[in-house]
């Protein structure tokens, strides 16, 4: 009994506790939270982006904040290979090229975003230097006009369009950045004699399956279908275009009777899941949506159906990748298959094509068009009316004198017909005002959030008035205007977070992710959330079907031709009749049988498949200690071998009782 008590006492007061026991692996490695690698994309002739080796790239950590650090690394660094952590200032083409040339020294790159985006921009003076990984002339080879001598995107560094032989990650998590910097300071400084002690090292793993080009990787994928377990190497980039028209389309549309208002629905960046595209994309979408909403109020269906003309609002997807969406629409029109094989809209049915691109917070609107061929009366009229209604608001409106057209979906239609009556409505003249075009910094802080809603509201109002005139041939006499607060609501959705009031009012109780929208088009098997939500938003401009009370009946509801019924959740909670719908935004290159993927005519972009993305931080054993341990091990083995052998061979000398009696007992 007393023994029991002693035991109990010991159990409760003994100092050894399990709480501070970590497994060996956990003591060695820290996982760095960073799920945004640079990944691999391919087109018909090349590969772009980054990949790690199959089991990850390992290297000694080195922080690089200026060129001196880089110089030291390349000329004096002894603990090869290195993984370098760059500040955004150093993340430019020159530094990356230098690193690429020293590929045996550097094994990977991390971009540390130390602080909020605004802090990063201020600290590294990025407003002056720019931070755009895109080409200086985006979509250089799929436009109708060549790149002007003063390129559109002067801040472009071209990083996005190169193939790097090492992995690149961006780290946003502030704790992770602190851990990385602390580890470097604690273990890797001072820099001399780095090989004498354990060094802080990193392993970057982001192995991409695809290689070479789209043609090769699609062929490999098809070949692997014969295997028991087929492997996919790459996926075609694609999504859906979203459109909405004022009234339904009918077969046998007359020529030049349709006005199209277009914007693009995608942006891109170098890193997975981070394509905020605020100024690159979102402002134009918001302008388009606000215009569509106002038009639907100015010209209600019952009123609009008296006119023969129609307006179509369309959001093209995948435009960052050689105009996937618009080239598909142009191709479908040419094949008499747009939006379906009954209506057969064609390019010459379009009387006015207005594209919104990079609408800026500054009160400046610039028209771009292919001056050489464009003599359309509709375009002239539109520009005049738009001018008139907007100059009241102290806007500076003029037409660009450039002979080429900036990167825009318009190119896809101009390629089929150079006389196409299209005009591009932008916030910049001969170069982008956006310093962060297609970069991870192009977020809410890049658009002067409180200023821009007023600008957008004015532009949308004038745009609506001009379109009203196109339909009715009369100027608008009413007093309806785009409400600034509605624009702010739209901006909340398209710039700040998908989980915004407007989208929630369409979808609740469905939960929406609470993060800024990702404008990357992604693979064609998945329809992006933003695409579906934009379609629902269009649907809410339609008419309520009062006799249908629940979702099932709504799906089965027989609509007039040209209409669809959509059930809206949330505040609406009703069945809506809408002209909005999706069309495929997959490049014609993957539709046309036996299309030569190396031809530049259509977009041939694919995205590599990858499996695992991981960053681990750990200490790398110093080479000296490794050698010592190895020699010790070998010495112990040899020594013990010699001793045992000698003793066993001469056991007669060492052991005196050699009698062969019982096995176990004496």
């Amino acid at each position, binding site marked *: 009994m007393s023994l029991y008590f002693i035991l109990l006492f*010991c159990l409760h007061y003994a100092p050894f506790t399990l709480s501070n026991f970590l497994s060996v692996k956990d003591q*060695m490695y820290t996982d760095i939270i960073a799920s945004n690698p640079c990944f691999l994309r391919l087109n018909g002739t090349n590969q772009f982006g980054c990949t790690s080796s199959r089991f990850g790239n390992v290297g000694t950590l080195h922080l690089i904040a200026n060129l001196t650090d880089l110089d030291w690394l390349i000329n004096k660094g002894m603990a090869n290979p290195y993984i370098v952590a760059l500040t955004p200032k150093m993340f430019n083409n020159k530094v990356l090229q230098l690193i690429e040339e020293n590929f045996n020294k550097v094994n990977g790159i991390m971009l540390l975003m130390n602080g909020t985006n605004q802090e990063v921009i201020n600290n590294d003076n990025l407003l002056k230097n720019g931070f755009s990984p895109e080409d200086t002339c985006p979509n250089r080879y799929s436009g109708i006009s060549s790149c002007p001598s003063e390129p559109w995107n002067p801040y472009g560094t071209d990083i996005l369009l190169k193939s790097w032989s090492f992995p690149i990650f961006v780290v946003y998590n502030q704790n992770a950045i602190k851990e990385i910097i602390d580890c470097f300071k604690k273990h890797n400084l001072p820099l001399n004699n780095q090989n004498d002690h354990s060094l802080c090292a990193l392993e970057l793993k982001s192995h991409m399956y695809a290689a070479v080009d789209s043609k090769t990787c699609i062929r490999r994928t098809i070949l692997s279908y014969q295997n028991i377990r087929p492997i996919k190497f790459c996926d075609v980039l694609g999504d859906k275009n979203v459109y909405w028209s004022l009234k339904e389309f009918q077969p046998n549309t007359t020529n030049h009777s349709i006005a199209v208002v277009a914007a693009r629905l995608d942006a891109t960046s170098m890193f997975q899941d981070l394509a905020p595209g605020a100024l690159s994309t979102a402002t134009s979408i918001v302008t388009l949506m606000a215009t569509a909403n106002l038009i639907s109020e100015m010209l209600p269906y019952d009123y609009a159906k008296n006119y023969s003309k129609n307006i179509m609002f369309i959001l093209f997807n995948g435009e960052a990748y050689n105009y996937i969406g618009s080239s598909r629409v142009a191709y479908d029109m040419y094949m008499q298959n747009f939006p379906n094989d009954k209506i057969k809209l064609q390019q010459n049915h379009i009387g006015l094509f207005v594209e919104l691109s990079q609408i800026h917070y500054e009160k400046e609107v610039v028209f771009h068009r292919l001056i050489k061929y464009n003599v359309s009366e509709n375009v002239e009229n539109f520009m005049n009316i738009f001018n008139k209604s907007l100059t009241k608001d102290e806007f500076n409106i003029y037409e660009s004198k450039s002979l080429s057209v900036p990167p825009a979906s318009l190119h896809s239609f101009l390629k089929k017909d150079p006389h196409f009556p299209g005009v591009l409505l932008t916030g910049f003249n001969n170069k982008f005002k956006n310093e962060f075009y297609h970069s991870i910094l192009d977020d809410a802080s890049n658009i002067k959030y409180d200023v821009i809603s007023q600008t957008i509201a004015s532009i949308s109002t004038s745009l609506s008035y001009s379109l009203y005139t196109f339909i009715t041939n009369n100027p608008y006499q009413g007093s309806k205007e785009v409400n600034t607060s509605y624009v702010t609501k739209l901006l909340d959705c398209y710039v700040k977070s998908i989980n915004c009031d407007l989208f929630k009012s369409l979808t609740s109780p469905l939960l929406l992710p609470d993060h800024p929208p990702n404008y990357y088009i992604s693979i064609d098997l998945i329809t992006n959330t933003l695409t579906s939500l934009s379609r629902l938003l269009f649907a809410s401009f339609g008419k309520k079907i009062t006799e249908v009370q629940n979702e099932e009946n709504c799906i089965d509801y027989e609509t007039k031709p040209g209409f669809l019924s959509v059930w809206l959740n949330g505040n609406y909670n009703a069945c809506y009749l809408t002209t909005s719908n999706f069309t495929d935004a997959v490049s014609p290159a993957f539709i046309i049988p036996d299309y030569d993927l190396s031809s530049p005519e259509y977009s041939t972009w694919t995205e590599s498949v990858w499996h695992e993305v991981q960053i681990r931080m750990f*200490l*790398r054993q110093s080479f000296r200690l*490794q050698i010592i341990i190895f020699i010790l*091990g070998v010495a112990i083995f040899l020594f013990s*071998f010699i001793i045992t052998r000698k003793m066993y061979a001469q056991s007669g000398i060492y052991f005196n009782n050699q009698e062969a009696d019982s096995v176990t007992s*004496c």
Partner: protein
Amino acid sequence: MTLLEFTGCALTAFGPALSMFIVTIMNDPVRVIILIASSFFWLLSLLLSSIVWFIFPSKQQVWFGVFISVLVQELFRYFLYLLLRKAERGLKRFVAHSLVSNNKHMLSYVSGLGFGVMSGLFSLVNILAEVGGPGTMGLRGGYSAFCIVSSIFTAFTILLHIFWGILFFHGLNTANKNLILYVIVSHLVVSEITLFNQYYYYILTLSIVFSITLGTGLYAFKTAGGQLPIIDKLKTENTNTAES
């Protein structure tokens, strides 16, 4: 790069055991069988102690788990002894052509080595598995020499198991309770003392374990009838000079 560290650690821990196996055991099938049987008995003891650990309510107390585990190991050493004793007659028939019975301590040596190798494998294998990877200890606790220190501990444990095997069987044969008690107590002390490693007292623990190994080794050597010729020579010289 880390292959060096892995090889060094593995050879440090298992080098002595490996050389003993190559020199003394490999050539005799019966010894190999007994080696495997004793390893199997160690595994059984591990199974039983983990069952106890599993049912035991307070898992925070590592020292108690170690305590139970040592007792269970010694219990199974006793079971092994009983088994070998039962198998004695059968073995003898075999042994006519074998080397097992050359020395009555050969059997206890072989079974002790089996115990040691298996326990060494289990204590070091998860460390060795990680040493092959790119990292080493030191980022979140531990120190850079962790692997080699653990390997040296393992080497001592294997040697100690051999000595304990010899002493324990000898104690049972001669009904020497003190000898058995010494084995159990020293096993407990060595196992519990390793718990101090988490406080980085590894130099202290290493020297204690080293002295226990040395002492136990010498005693086992003597028990097995060992004698160092140099000492004998010195002794005879001494007596000679005394006589003359």
